[in-house]
């Protein structure tokens, strides 16, 4: 540690503190304030919890909440697939380098690009349905994005398609740092592939998994805006409405920033719940890595 004047550290911290106080501090205080006002322009009269009451009465908000909750189903899928694929790549099956590069590739494409490609491919007469009809699966050639029963699941598929590569790379990095003696001991003792995965590898991946689960929960609840905005705009009807889009629409389309702020506060409080587990897990993961 450097021996410095009592105030010197704050000299170095000042620019960062100024920046973060503006972008986070000011905005977070303001969003609570806005959520209790009837905003016209920059501010408006105080109306207590009226905005919240309106929001919680709104069926569209209920739908948005429900859809964010349903998107959480992507989390176990992402975890299972990432682990399985990472384990296979770690075994260095034939072509693993090629697979690794390929599986990560979706991450290089911007979400709007992916969204536009998929929404064209998945249209009623798009490439996907042509393929399905071509191999005789006519009954599976559905209106993937146009049907309100399907659109959310299609959206979830696209999110998984794009996010999977990251999970694979994450698990692969962890597997590379594991102790191989355990695995070898398992082999010598005659444990089969499934047993080694279940009893030897998975327990060692527990930390990364907990961390990855929390990250993905936060993503599904609060970071899916670009997918929804580009692919469905919340439609058809409100079949893919989510909280982020609700905030965007109410603030910048419907000119009801008060109600939008109330939802923003709700979303903020939801993410807050996950901050503490996330950081205890992150620290544990780092500790595990060092040992």
């Amino acid at each position, binding site marked *: 540690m*450097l021996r410095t004047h009592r105030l010197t*550290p704050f000299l*170095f911290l000042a*620019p*960062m503190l100024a*920046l*973060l106080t503006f972008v*986070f501090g000011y*905005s977070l205080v*303001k*969003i609570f304030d*806005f959520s209790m006002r009837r*905003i016209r322009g920059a501010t408006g009269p105080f109306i207590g919890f009226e905005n919240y009451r309106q929001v919680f009465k709104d069926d569209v908000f209920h739908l948005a909440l429900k859809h964010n909750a349903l998107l959480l189903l992507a989390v176990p899928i992402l975890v299972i697939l990432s682990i*399985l694929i990472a384990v*296979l790549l770690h*075994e260095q*099956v*034939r072509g693993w380098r090629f*697979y690794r*590069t390929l599986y*990560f*590739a*979706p*991450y*290089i*494409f*911007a*979400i*709007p*690009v992916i969204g*536009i*490609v998929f*929404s*064209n*491919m998945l249209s009623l007469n*798009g*490439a996907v349905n042509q*393929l399905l009809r*071509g191999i005789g699966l006519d009954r599976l050639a559905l209106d993937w994005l146009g049907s309100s029963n399907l659109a959310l699941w299609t959206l979830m598929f696209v999110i998984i*398609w794009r996010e999977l590569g990251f999970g694979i*790379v*994450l698990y692969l990095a*962890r597997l590379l740092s594991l102790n191989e003696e355990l695995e070898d001991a398992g082999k010598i003792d005659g444990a089969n*592939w499934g047993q080694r995965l279940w009893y030897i590898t998975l327990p060692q991946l527990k930390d*990364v998994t907990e961390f990855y689960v929390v*990250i993905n929960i*936060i993503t599904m609840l*609060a*970071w899916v*805006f*670009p997918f929804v*905005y*580009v692919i469905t705009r919340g439609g058809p009807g409100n079949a893919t409405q989510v909280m*982020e889009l609700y905030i*965007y629409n109410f*603030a910048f389309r419907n000119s009801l920033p008060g109600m939008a702020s109330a939802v923003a*506060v709700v979303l903020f409080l939801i*993410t807050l719940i996950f901050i503490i587990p996330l*950081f205890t897990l*992150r620290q544990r993961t780092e500790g595990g890595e060092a040992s």
Partner: protein
Amino acid sequence: MTTETPVSVVLETPAPKEGRRIDWFDIVKQLFLIFFALLILFPGYFLLITPFKTQTNYSADKLGLPSPFYFENFTTALRGGRFFLWFGNSLIMVVGAVLLSTVVAALAAFAFSRMRFRAQTPLLAIITALMVIPPVVMIIPLFIFFSRMDMSGSYASAILVYAGLITPFAVYMLTNFFRTIPHEIVESALIDGATSLGILMKILVPLSAPALVTLVVVNSLWVWSDLLIALVLLPTDEKRTLMVGITVFGSRYNSDVPVAMAGMIMASLPMLLLYIFGQKYFTRGLVAGALKG
């Protein structure tokens, strides 16, 4: 495989007759991996071939190779979308925000890693926690603030917001990295009479080059691919970023898919090239972004 070409020798497990049976489980594993490979390749194939089709060719056949190969879609796309302008705007955002954030974060990380002050640990904890808060929570007050300041739609407003949003991660990562640099190096510089700023600039920053590269990659990617902030803070035609530009472009050409796809290819080229030439930094950076810092 029926014929014994040199390729098949490399690909197949040799001589199953010699007592080594075919490992069916290996085949299952490969099929599993191939299935996902196809799932990823299919949209890529679609994106790659569609721009070379005419409209009629596309409506008749969405899967086959273009016949004949048609190149006009790219010129149409370039006339219909201002890709170079959008690209330039995105670049301004990335350079401005990443530069500002890295400088600010390096100064702060220096204090966190090499000095002692009150409330140090809780302050760092709060800053790292900020990473999780989605920007959509902050965007309404920020938008209203900039409108009131007569700054709405300006580059400066968006750069400031982007820089703020990526700074918590930068501080977190640089602090952790600075801490790994042995104190003896700093000590010997102190004996040579270096100032605090001198230690930061001449020792910590140069020794952190790998971490800085990773940091710049992660944060540039973040700013480059953001949609929401650009949508709200840079709505005018002249200031559109690439992400907003291609979103608008995609819906404008949703009835002329080959042109839309030509646009998507052009928009993806810069990242694709960076990935091909810097794959190491990309993957390493992204894992670091989530796991270690």
